[in-house]
């Protein structure tokens, strides 16, 4: 791209050209474009801020509530108490905030019609989807990891009042905290995949809420043993059920090991993006 000296007339196209074409990678260019889009709208800042505040604030509140009740609790409740999971309970709500942002990353383009200029600039639609997923995924992972570590620190500080706190170096604790951020990021990515398939903000958010909050309740209503079988494969069940494998520290025989739980969550994202990549390539924009 050569710049013309006179700003009032476009450069004669014969003088530029050459550059670009082969050799230059498309994906990094599209990722830079998506990064500019993501950081240039306020909804991004607000969603990330909400995710962080909810993660930390509710985590601390849950710990505060537990501490205030502690003297009235029975021995059994005291023994099953998981201080790590308690400080991370804000993610039940935070997953909605990060999920909404994941949805908006593409549904805002469908809602405004901006998807057409986007796909006109980059006709390689799966590259656009990949760039969005990578850029949003990295941003979401950084913010949610910072959030869960802050929530852990705040929660343990509260619990320390009753000498209930644990340290990040205690067995399984680091893995659990890291896992919580991974879980939130994966819910955000699921939101992005769903919004690519559904192309409507409201519809995608409703579907995501249905998947993470309502499906587990419905699954519980199934006859045994299907209820627990179905529940444990849902994203929430994989990670957050009783004695959560991924970010609880207490092993639970009815749940998956942390490694399997992580693989299952990744599988949800892979399936979501496989369908999304198929639909974005096949449909008229």
């Amino acid at each position: 791209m050569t710049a013309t000296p006179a700003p009032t007339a476009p450069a004669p196209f014969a003088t530029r050209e050459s550059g670009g074409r082969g050799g230059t990678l498309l994906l990094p260019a599209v990722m830079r474009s998506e990064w500019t889009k993501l950081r240039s709208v306020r909804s991004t800042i607000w969603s990330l801020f909400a995710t962080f505040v909810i993660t930390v604030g509710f985590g601390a509140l849950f710990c505060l509530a537990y501490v205030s009740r502690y003297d009235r609790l029975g021995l059994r409740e005291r023994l099953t108490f998981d201080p790590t999971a308690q400080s991370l309970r804000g993610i039940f709500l935070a997953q909605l905030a990060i999920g909404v942002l994941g949805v908006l990353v593409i549904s805002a383009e469908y809602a405004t019609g901006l998807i057409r200029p986007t796909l006109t600039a980059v006709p390689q639609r799966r590259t656009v989807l990949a760039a969005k997923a990578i850029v949003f995924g990295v941003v979401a992972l950084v913010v949610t990891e910072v959030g869960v570590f802050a929530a852990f620190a705040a929660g343990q500080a509260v619990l320390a009042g009753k000498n209930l706190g644990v340290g990040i170096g205690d067995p399984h604790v680091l893995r659990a905290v890291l896992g919580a951020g991974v879980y939130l990021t994966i819910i955000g990515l699921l939101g992005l995949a769903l919004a690519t398939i559904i192309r409507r903000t409201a519809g995608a958010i409703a579907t995501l809420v249905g998947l993470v909050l309502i499906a587990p309740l419905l699954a519980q209503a199934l006859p045994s043993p299907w209820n627990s079988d179905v529940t444990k494969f849902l994203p929430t069940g994989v990670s957050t059920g009783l004695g959560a494998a991924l970010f609880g520290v207490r092993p639970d025989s009815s749940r998956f090991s942390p490694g399997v739980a992580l693989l299952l969550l990744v599988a949800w994202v892979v399936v979501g993006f496989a369908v999304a990549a198929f639909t974005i390539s096949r449909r008229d924009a």
Partner: protein
Amino acid sequence: MIEVRRLTKRYGETIAVDDLSFQVLPGRVTGFLGPNGAGKSTTMRVILGLDAPNAGTATVKGTPYGRHRFPAREVGALLDAMALHPGRSARAHLWSLAQSNRISRSRVDEVLDLVGLTDVARRRVGPFSLGMKQRLGIAAALLGDPEVLLFDEPVTGLDPEGIVWIRGLFHRLAADGRTVFVSSHLMSEMALTAQHLIVIGRGKLIADDTSDNIVAGGSTTVLVRSPRADELSALLARAGGSIGSDNGALSVTNLDAAAIGDLAAQHGIALHELTPQHASLEEVFFELTGDQVQYRAASPEGGPTSSPSPTAHEVPR
């Protein structure tokens, strides 16, 4: 150059584009005319690879659009000026498009300057007027300094000064040797802007010719005033003319001015006016597309009105 060959696009039962073929050549402004719903936007979306055709092909510079690696450097397009994130600044919008095609930041400022939006570049575009959004859309189309340009109804929302500006811009771009393809349902505007016209109706090609030829091909009417109009009217009708009345004058078609004058002279009828009137592009357009208009307002008499409803909006697909 843009080449569309035997293009057909259906949406369910509706045929939007029906076996359409044409070429858009460089070095001139080509107008793409048709009533609302004629298939103009659909054709442009197919050319840009946004919609897949059911049959036929569309190529830009000899290549299907999607095969261009950095298409913004080859083809610039403005489809819908409203397609913006309201919360993003004009500059960030253009910068995001530029980055995906590896276009420099200085070029972003250059096109902002070119369309006169430098002063508002850092403002969020939500409150922009339609005219400002059109200018931003034109800036986006020019970003990659492309050889081929497509504009879908670019004049909508521009103020008179903006319309003159955009007309000049199109002419400059064409004079550079670029391919400039501009759709419109406003014939009067295209008469001033385009040297070549492609007219479609209900997805089919109606005319593909220079603007001058298309206007010349329209029927000519002759305006006649005479104190003995009734008498003359009967004579003209016998001679094969078809007579209408126009504000106290006779409006005669199928006879030229010379024949009318001779006839009047033979019968000693005085003429106060004898004016041949070439059809405007607008009138030719209605002649060409008369039975092709999909959406029109019913006239009070129940018959079709002579013009498509200006408020009818193209159905977004």
